[in-house]
């Protein structure tokens, strides 16, 4: 039996092994990208149990779709795309659920979904302010901000992950920046 060095294997090898049913190879993929996925889904949904569930769903979907992964883009890009789409789906689901159980004038919008209230004034710091400001953005703006500022992708990479034109990403970033400036000023 051949001993495989999973830690030093590259992504395409791990994908190939995972497709063949090697669970250790898939375990290594999770180890490599858990933190990346956590940043994205927590950025989109807040640090909640819901984010943890979506994180699990991201990897389960990845496993089920690995045989369709052609390797045209990097594995990290593919995973990021699943993470963003799953988070947006979760936001939509919650929005639908809330719209059923609340009056229309109550459901202002979904800007502050899953935001942990900052009860203790002393605990507020710049990290909380910035995360709260991000959570107040519309989901489509939130996703570009998370990929660009939180994950540090270039605008071109962000466009590739979101599968949208570069111009749309640049426009959303510009509008998001304007909104964030206003929100951060309001929070001060």
């Amino acid at each position, binding site marked *: 039996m051949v001993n495989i060095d999973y830690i030093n294997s590259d992504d395409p090898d791990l994908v190939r092994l995972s497709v063949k049913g090697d*669970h250790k190879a*898939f375990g290594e993929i999770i180890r490599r990208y858990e933190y990346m996925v*956590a940043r994205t889904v927590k950025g989109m949904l807040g640090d909640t149990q819901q984010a943890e569930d979506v*994180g699990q769903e991201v990897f*389960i979907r990845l496993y089920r779709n690995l045989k369709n992964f052609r390797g045209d883009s990097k594995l990290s890009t593919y995973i990021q795309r699943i993470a963003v789409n799953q988070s947006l789906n979760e936001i939509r689901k919650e929005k639908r659920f809330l719209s059923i159980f609340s009056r229309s004038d109550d459901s202002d919008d979904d800007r502050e979904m899953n935001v942990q209230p900052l009860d203790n004034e002393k605990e507020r710091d*710049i*990290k909380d302010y910035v995360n709260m400001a991000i959570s107040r953005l519309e989901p489509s703006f939130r996703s570009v901000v998370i990929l660009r500022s939180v994950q540090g992708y270039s605008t071109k990479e962000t466009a590739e992950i979101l599968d949208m034109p570069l111009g749309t990403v640049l426009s959303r970033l510009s509008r998001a*920046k304007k909104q*964030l*400036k206003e929100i951060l000023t309001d929070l001060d």
Partner: protein
Amino acid sequence: MKEEKMKDLFLQSLTDDLNPAQRDALDTKLFPSDGFNPGFRERVMKVVQGGSLLREKSKKHLERSLNSLFVRVSLAGAAAIIVLVLSLLLSQGSLSYDTLLGIDKNVDGMLVSLATD
């Protein structure tokens, strides 16, 4: 780095490329990587392994069911053919093509008389 500067750095990161030191400051102060709760990988693997095990089991179960169904249908079919042949043999006394096809020798004449009436 002061909070106001961090805020500016965050806003700058939306439209400009940051240098490594700025990126590091942003990652440390604003977006530290916490990951998920402990045991996250094990929980996902449990679902993945359970799912593939379940698929394998259901595939085998389906194969067994189809095999068993095929044997039952083929046995029942063979028994029905034997019973049919025997009943024809007993009722007609022979096993000619006409008997097997259910054609009576008098059919032609009957049809002609029906048509002329």
